[in-house]
């Protein structure tokens, strides 16, 4: 994504040198939104494995026998998926920005990055989307009894983001500053609600006694 999209932009510029700045920026912004979608895609495999994986590997019982509370265990699971995800997204975004600037500086006449859009995408929307996706995956992981079900269900989590992406591209929900702030607010509320739900569905007794 970080290298492929800039190479695609270079191809477009090389094959259609007359492409205008508005079209070019449209491409660049459309591609950069994938860092937000990545926030939902990257952590789900780790997060969906988090509880059910420990149960399958029989390592959950010793963990539950420590003084860690349910909230601490869930927070740990969220951070374990969030930290590598964000590091990967931030590293990828830096590579993306450097390459885009290199390939488009001549056509645009200025360096497009860094700008407020990608800062908002990478430092606000992507972490919030990742937290929501991780919390939903952890909640799913605490309810299903096998890793495959957890991963399949967690895979559904990024579908709303694809709809949002399509909505933004067809201008049904353009990701301007106002809409981005609305989206961020909705994500914060969703994250808080999901954490509360995760704590309720994380039932130690059911996990230990009913899961096979």
């Amino acid at each position, binding site marked *: 994504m970080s290298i492929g999209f800039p190479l695609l932009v270079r191809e477009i510029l090389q094959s259609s040198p007359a492409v205008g700045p508005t079209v070019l920026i449209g491409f660049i912004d459309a591609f950069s939104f994938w860092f937000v979608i990545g926030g939902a895609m990257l952590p789900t495999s780790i997060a969906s494995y988090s509880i059910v994986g420990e149960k399958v*590997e*029989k*390592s*959950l*019982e*010793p*963990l*539950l*026998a*420590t*003084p*860690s*509370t349910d909230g601490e265990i869930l927070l740990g699971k969220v951070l374990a998926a969030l930290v590598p995800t964000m590091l990967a997204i931030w590293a990828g975004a830096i590579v993306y920005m450097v390459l885009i600037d290199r390939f488009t500086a001549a056509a645009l006449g200025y360096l497009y990055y860094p700008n407020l859009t990608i800062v908002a995408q990478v430092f606000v929307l992507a972490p919030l989307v990742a937290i929501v996706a991780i919390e939903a995956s952890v909640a799913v992981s605490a309810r299903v009894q096998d890793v495959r079900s957890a991963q399949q269900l967690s895979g559904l989590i990024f579908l709303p983001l694809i709809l949002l992406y399509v909505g933004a591209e067809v201008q049904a929900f353009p990701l301007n500053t106002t809409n981005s702030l609305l989206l961020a607010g909705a994500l914060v509320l969703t994250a808080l609600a999901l954490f509360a739900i995760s704590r309720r569905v994380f039932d*130690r*007794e059911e996990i*230990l*006694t009913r899961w096979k």
Partner: protein
Amino acid sequence: MIHAEGLTKQFGSITAVDNLTLDVEEGEVFGFLGPNGAGKTTTVRMLTSLISRTSGSAEVAGCVLGDPAEEVRLRGRIGLLPENVGLYEAQSAGENLAYFGRLQGMEPSRIAANIERLLRMLELWEKRDLPVATFSKGMKQKVAIARALVHDPQVLFLDEPTANLDPAAAKTVRDFILELKKERRTIFLNTHHLDEAERVCDRVGILRTRLLTVGSPTELKSRIWGRRTLARVDRVTEAILGSIRTRLGDRRIDVDGDRLVIAVDEPDRQNREIAAAIVAAGGKLRELSPVSASLEDVYLKLVHEGGSGS
């Protein structure tokens, strides 16, 4: 150190543990015996606050079960070896132990010191950096015991520590439990290895949903099995049986081929009476010796007959 009063656990309509009342003293190794499904693991899970109780009360290491804050404190004072060791296989023995030390809120220097002490005791120090996945079952079991001990708990719960181990590995684990016993650790040991319980435990309780009996192995053997004398004769006849009952009164006599196993109250006096009774009835006495019961005899008698030994 452990006090349970009327502890009961029901899963729907099934009663897993029924009205368990039990005390385990500090420094005691207490063995919990019972067949599969008797409620041993459920009891350990209740006493370690992993699952709730349906009724009754319990206090472990000074913490009352049922209060969430007390239960968090309790989990810092106990160590648990579950039936499945559940180690992080890709991590080394040292990493597994350090992780659990951190979860217990220990200082790094204390974690390092305890890991070295435990792994040296278990003869795993040289292998501390190898992934656990490369270890044998016995070695993994030892690492899991070390994990339960890394924070110096006041009470150690061991759930079937030698299950599924080969005899050599089981012996290593058993020897380690004996080492812990020398350190005066309070240990609650779930097992269905009766010889293990007999060798290791100060007292045992036999559970089959209800607690059937509690006592030291010696006490149980005497109380449940009673004293018995084996008499081997050339041929068992009604005359011999009648003669013994005439002299000793009505009592339990088990006949197996040419052997008689006779319940006695005062072996020194009554063994002479038995010999005299056999000779008087025309029998030839070939052997007369006390029968020593094993804990297994006591266990099988209680579990199969379902009686109470108390």
